[in-house]
């Protein structure tokens, strides 16, 4: 008996161990079946007042047999010939064109698409943006310059195929890692290719893409559903979020940010955008469309702060960095709205002139073009000021390798934040760009608008520190643009001194270009950020998408760089810096105080932190349409991004439908058989299990 109990205990113990290990073993079965694809970027659904754009998958992902399309003829297998629809197409980046996508959109034999990024970039250019960016939200409409509305005069982005603004009913993913693309192609070649003349046979290599989007139809519908859910439901389910973040602004002479400016004070505004977009979510390198302009802007701000009589200039200069300009001018429309309603320290009446830097890195033979608005140029009160502004600009390029030229005065403004200010009030202003008519940028708002697009080339064999400080030709060219801008601003602000001493520093420009285009985790950025924000810096190239949770990395980095370049180091302790009201001589209303972690001491791992006093502020960049709850507005941007639960991709082998059905039927048959067997054994138990010594009854 004791031995029996001991055996039972042993059995129990072994069972418990098996159960415990079973949990880990179950995982390894999954790993044997599925190969996850980790370096991918999905295409998500964005909505505006009237449409939904982007891609959608089924709730439990879309599965399809993989087919690699490397040339146009391969597509016929997917569309007509292949015997195992639906197919999951693996497309080479070169073939990702509008014609092919419209063909895929029209068929039901495609359950998804994976695009392999093409290296090098497609030589003919690729732009999924619109040919007329931000049409209908600028200043030109049927009342104001109707001949310029809807790009009737100049098509700004002729290579634009509008793919980012199409609606697809299947998921589309970008494969960023060439190794993963090779794994998929290997699986395809092992299993999916036809052999010996006959078609491919099961098991076949398949891919599953999960990217189920919650929002539908348009912003009006999804915001209405949000409000119904949050008012009436017990567990509210929000389906979409408005695109929003913050604008960064700073002034040359400090102003009291909580009070309004005196009406007699005048301000010169210089503006750039800091965001971009591509077809895929959170992939927006934006080198030429955004980074080039705001880096030149930051360098000009640094140069102006070094001028000795900066604080005694008659007019102030406001450096503004707008976020969300890619999506119908979110940042600038919000700032104009705040200015009109006196919620911003500067009012529209205080604006003396406006200078904007558009795309400036791809200058053809050192030419920089000055664009002005033809309609306000005919206004008698504004015209002389515009002429004076252009004259000042043309005079600022003497001695610098920049040839400033004015475009024809009957040509409209390119898409720019200045157009939103003109909608409110005729302000004299100009937009500087490297293109005369159509964009020089052949990869506008695409995944290929990277450092290579603006010709940033480093020699081989440099360490990261050396690469950070190496001055490329691009950096030199942007520094020259910044010098011209700084000199022009000095004169526009009423400065009368000699401008030849105002120079932008090419070394600062190259450090910023490295930080914003190649790697944010470099020693300079590490030294200028706050200590608790170390997660801001990564080793991959940064992406400049506005997103829905703020503030995004780009906004914070621009804020810290601007504070570092234009602020002064003050001798406060950490306690005083974080609580400026206790510090002697600190003016909390005029300045912003930041405790940054500083650079590393030589031969040591500790850093020397310090306090920076600057005039940098953040202001909310949420479209006024959401403040006013006018979700169908045609005046303000209404872009929202859908929410989702799970986005991932994986590949595995699938069996034929017949094999699956056979397995199911055999399983059910075994179940029925075992039930019958149990019933019969139970019914005849007294016959089957009687022992000879028992009394028969």
């Amino acid at each position, binding site marked *: 008996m004791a031995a029996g109990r001991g055996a039972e205990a042993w059995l129990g113990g072994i069972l418990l161990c098996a159960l415990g290990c079973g949990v880990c073993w179950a995982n390894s079965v999954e790993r044997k079946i599925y190969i996850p694809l980790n370096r991918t970027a999905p295409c998500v659904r964005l909505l505006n007042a009237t449409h939904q754009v982007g891609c*959608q998958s089924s*709730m439990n992902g879309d599965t399809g047999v993989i087919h690699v399309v490397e040339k146009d003829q391969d597509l016929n297998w997917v569309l007509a010939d292949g015997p195992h629809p639906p197919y999951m197409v693996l497309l080479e980046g070169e073939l990702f064109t509008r014609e092919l996508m419209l063909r895929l959109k029209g068929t039901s034999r495609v359950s998804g698409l994976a695009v392999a990024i093409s290296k090098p970039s497609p030589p003919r250019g690729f732009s999924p943006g619109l040919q007329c960016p931000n049409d209908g939200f600028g200043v030109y409409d049927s009342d104001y310059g109707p001949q310029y509305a809807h790009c009737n005069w100049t098509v700004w982005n002729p290579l634009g195929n509008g793919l980012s603004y199409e609606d697809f009913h299947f998921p589309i993913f970008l494969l960023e890692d060439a190794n993963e693309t090779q794994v998929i192609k290997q699986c395809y070649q092992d299993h999916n290719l036809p052999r010996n003349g006959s078609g491919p046979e099961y098991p076949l290599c398949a891919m599953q893409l999960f990217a*189920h*989007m*919650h*929002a*539908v*139809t348009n912003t009006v*519908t999804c915001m*209405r*559903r949000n409000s*119904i*859910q949050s008012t009436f439901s017990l567990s509210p*389910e929000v*389906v979409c979020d408005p695109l929003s973040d913050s604008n960064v602004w700073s002034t040359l002479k400090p102003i009291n940010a909580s009070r309004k400016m005196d009406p007699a004070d005048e301000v010169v505004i210089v503006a750039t955008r800091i965001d971009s977009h591509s077809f895929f979510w959170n992939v927006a390198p934006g080198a030429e469309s955004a980074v080039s302009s705001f880096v030149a802007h930051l360098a000009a701000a640094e140069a102006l702060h070094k001028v000795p009589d900066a604080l005694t200039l008659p007019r102030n200069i406001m450096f503004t960095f707008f976020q969300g300009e890619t999506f119908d001018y979110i940042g600038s429309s919000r700032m104009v709205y705040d200015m009109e309603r006196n919620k911003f320290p500067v009012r529209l009446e205080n604006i003396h002139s406006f200078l904007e830097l558009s795309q400036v890195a791809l200058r053809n033979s050192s030419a920089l073009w000055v664009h002005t608005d033809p309609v306000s140029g005919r206004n008698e009160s504004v015209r002389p000021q515009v002429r004076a502004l252009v004259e000042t600009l043309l005079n600022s390029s003497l001695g610098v390798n920049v040839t400033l030229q004015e475009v024809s005065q009957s040509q409209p403004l390119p898409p720019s934040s200045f157009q939103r200010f003109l909608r409110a009030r005729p302000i004299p202003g100009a937009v500087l760009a490297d293109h005369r008519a159509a964009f020089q940028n052949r990869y506008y708002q695409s995944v290929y608008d990277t450092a290579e697009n603006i010709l940033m080339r480093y020699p081989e064999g440099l360490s990261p520190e050396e690469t950070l400080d190496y001055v490329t030709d691009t950096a030199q060219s942007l520094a020259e643009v910044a010098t011209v801008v700084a000199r022009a601003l000095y004169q526009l602000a009423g400065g009368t001194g000699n401008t030849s001493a105002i120079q932008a520093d090419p070394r600062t420009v190259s450090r910023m270009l490295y930080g914003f285009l190649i790697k944010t985790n470099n020693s300079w950025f590490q030294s200028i950020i706050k200590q608790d924000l170390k997660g801001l810096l990564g080793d991959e190239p940064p992406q400049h998408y506005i997103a829905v949770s703020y503030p995004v990395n780009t906004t914070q980095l621009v804020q810290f760089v601007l504070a570092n370049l234009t602020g002064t180091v003050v001798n406060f302790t950490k306690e005083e810096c974080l609580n400026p009201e206790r510090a002697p001589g600190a003016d909390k209303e005029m300045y912003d105080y930041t405790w940054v972690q500083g650079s590393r001491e030589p031969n040591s791992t500790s850093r020397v932190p310090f306090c920076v006093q600057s005039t940098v502020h953040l202001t909310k960049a949420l479209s006024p349409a959401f403040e006013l709850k006018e979700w169908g507005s045609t005046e303000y941007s209404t872009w929202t991004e859908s929410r989702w639960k799970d986005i991932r991709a994986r590949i595995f082998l699938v069996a034929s439908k017949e094999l699956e059905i056979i397995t199911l039927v055999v399983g059910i048959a075994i179940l029925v058989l075992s039930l019958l067997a149990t019933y019969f054994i139970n019914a005849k138990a007294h016959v089957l299990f009687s022992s000879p010594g028992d009394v028969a009854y």
Partner: protein
Amino acid sequence: GGFALLPFLWLVNVLWFCREAFLAPAYTEQPQIKSYVQRSAVGLLFWVVVLTTWVTIFQTHRARWGELGDYLSFTIPLGIP
């Protein structure tokens, strides 16, 4: 039972008392039970017709009704109109 809005109670009525009302040998209370079962059956049929019609109309037309459809829904499906 109930005033006019208990179709499930009437369904239970019909199914439970069917044998008593129609198939059991006759006794004094049976005609009364029979009439109640018949009236429950009529009410049940009426409600089945009304509810089936409403459910069909709602399921097919909710997406087209836009705002009205959203306000009438208890749970709005995600990702489809």
